């Protein structure tokens, strides 16, 4: 069973190395990447089943005992995240293979993508604060390369902002680790869980706020979100899709993990988190309304929806955390699906500007449906996954009488609908107000009845189907989230497994 914890990290790294060795053949590289990620998905599912049945699984890398050695651990929450992440990585890879364009043919694309996969898996599976830093760095460094792979002026411009901001967060992370080690003498999370409680309250809050800032930059919560809508839209669509689906969610995962595991129950920053959540939701969606480009609208909405997850955490009840887990799962699926169909719109319409697109309901009817399904899900209409996740969240908020943040969440849903329908109506219904750029209009429509190559459409269909499936199978999934949330609030099994 222990191999299930280490292999999701090791396999993609081995795959990345092999992929460089076979750099001459794109076909071999793609086979390696596809089979690696399929294997990781299989292992992630097996891990989730195992963890759900028998409790957390832990490995001490190198055989060193817990506080000194590197702990890898999977509990329900990390296993759920790993499964969803693997599905996204696999479907976006298929989409990237199907997309025509220079960047996905770059010799390094497959290996860097696999390093990103390894970093994401390591971040979910680590039980050590310093190892979390290393895995986030691994993931981010891969993302720096992916976002600037084309070397175009626009990419270099936004890549600079993205890299510099992420590096500042990393510097703060190292400083935070130094303070944690100086005050407790350990960076193992299970070990810290006992020791942080003994610290003086002032020091404890300082550490908590520092962690919130560090992970808040990665997760793009208010007021640390400004880098995201600037940098994400310039990357090629599959890269933006995987960033939108996974990168910020690793930040959210780290926030949830550290705030629940490390700090004792009596000093949880409920009010602070709820205020931040409300502000994040509101500012993100207002930013989205002002934009005039498909990818930029979607990017601002990532920010807005991070607020919902933080809101679930801020309630600090089993119901709230279960809703946060469910919302994270739903958002990863729906958002990645939206970005993939956004990429298809760009492919079929030749632009992602709302003013240059129009009338596509006639030229690409399949796309109209493919965009509508995840969009409705994100808004929170039944029977899609968003309805269940939002309902759980609002229900948890009303149970705790947090009516303020509940009202904000509902208003923001309405505004989300406005901004998404703005995309849908101006892309698919109304005529274009500006002529399309030269060369883009001449695409052969008869050759692509689906609106794009099959390999691009198929993963988008899978994600759209998945968001419906999550909505329909909400019962078992919500029960699983409830069990994961109970583990988060009462981590005795987690601590026992690590301490041995």
């Amino acid at each position: 069973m222990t191999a299930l914890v280490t292999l999701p990290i090791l396999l993609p790294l081995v795959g990345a190395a092999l992929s460089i060795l076979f750099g001459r053949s794109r076909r071999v590289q793609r086979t390696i990447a596809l089979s690696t990620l399929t294997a990781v998905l299989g292992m992630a599912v097996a891990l989730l089943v195992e963890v759900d049945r028998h409790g957390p699984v832990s490995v001490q890398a190198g055989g060193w005992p817990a506080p000194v050695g590197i702990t890898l651990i999977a509990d329900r929450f990390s296993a759920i995240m790993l499964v969803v992440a693997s599905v996204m990585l696999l479907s976006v890879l298929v989409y990237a293979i199907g997309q025509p364009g220079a960047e996905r043919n770059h010799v390094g694309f497959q290996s860097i993508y696999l390093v990103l996969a390894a970093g994401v898996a390591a971040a979910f599976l680590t039980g050590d604060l310093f190892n979390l830093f290393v895995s986030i760095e691994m993931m981010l460094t891969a993302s720096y390369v992916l976002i600037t792979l084309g070397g175009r002026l626009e990419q270099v411009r936004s890549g600079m902002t993205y890299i510099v901001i992420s590096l500042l967060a990393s510097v703060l992370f190292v400083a935070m680790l130094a303070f944690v080690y100086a005050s407790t003498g350990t960076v193992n999370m299970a070990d810290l869980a006992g020791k942080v409680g003994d610290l003086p309250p002032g020091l404890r809050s300082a550490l908590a706020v520092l962690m919130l800032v560090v992970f808040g930059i990665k997760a793009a919560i208010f007021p640390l979100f400004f880098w995201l809508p600037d940098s994400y839209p310039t990357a090629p669509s599959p890269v933006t899709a995987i960033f939108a689906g996974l990168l910020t969610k690793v930040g959210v995962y780290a926030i949830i993990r550290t705030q629940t595991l490390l700090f004792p129950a009596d000093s949880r920053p409920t009010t602070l988190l709820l205020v931040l959540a409300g502000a994040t939701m509101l500012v993100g969606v207002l930013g989205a309304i002002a934009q005039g480009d498909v990818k930029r609208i979607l990017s601002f909405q990532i920010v807005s929806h991070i607020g919902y997850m933080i809101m679930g955490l801020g309630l600090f009840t089993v119901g709230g955390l279960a809703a946060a887990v469910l919302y994270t799962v739903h958002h990863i699926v729906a958002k990645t699906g939206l970005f993939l169909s956004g990429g298809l719109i760009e492919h079929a319409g030749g632009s992602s500007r709302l003013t240059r697109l129009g009338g596509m309901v006639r030229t690409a009817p399949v796309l109209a449906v493919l965009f509508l399904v995840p969009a409705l899900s994100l808004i929170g209409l039944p029977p899609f996954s968003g309805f269940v996740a939002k309902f759980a969240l609002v229900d948890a908020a009303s149970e705790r009488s947090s009516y303020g943040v509940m009202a904000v969440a509902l208003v923001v849903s309405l505004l989300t609908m406005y901004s998404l329908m703005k995309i849908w109506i101006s892309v698919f219904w109304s005529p274009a107000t500006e002529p399309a750029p030269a060369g883009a209009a001449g695409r052969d429509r008869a050759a692509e009845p689906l609106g794009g190559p099959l390999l691009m459409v198929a993963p988008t269909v899978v994600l759209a189907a998945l968001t419906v499936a999550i909505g329909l199978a909400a019962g078992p999934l919500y029960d699983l989230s409830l069990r994961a949330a109970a583990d988060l609030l009462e981590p005795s099994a987690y601590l026992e497994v690590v301490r041995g």
Partner: protein
Amino acid sequence: MTVLLAATAAGLFGIGTYLVLQRKLSRIIIGIALLSHGANVLMVGSGRRGRAPIVGSGDAESLADPLPQALALTSIVISFGVTALLLALAYRSWLLTSDDEVQDDLEDERIAHRGAPDDDLAGSDELAEIEGDPTGEEVEP
């Protein structure tokens, strides 16, 4: 932790912050490097002081704590790699624009101007600048 190490870290953080606030990428890179040095000094200073931690060279209590040193080494390697990537990016930016200035988000400015009355925009130099942006896209009416 010694006062000297803490003062060094504070100085590095101060200078680094000043440099990061500049517009030239080359200065920002030096600033980032100084900031990460500051964080690493802080890391090294977080453990117990003592003699070189070699097994068998004395009793364990008199040795320095080796763990933060190993952690600092890891983070030095990471920041080395990322700094190299940033330098490559600065070079690329210099090749493309013969400048390494970090630019503003043009789309954002365009949207900010969209709400302004036309009279204000007519004589504005800023707008001309935006209109002449490298992507060649026009300001929306």
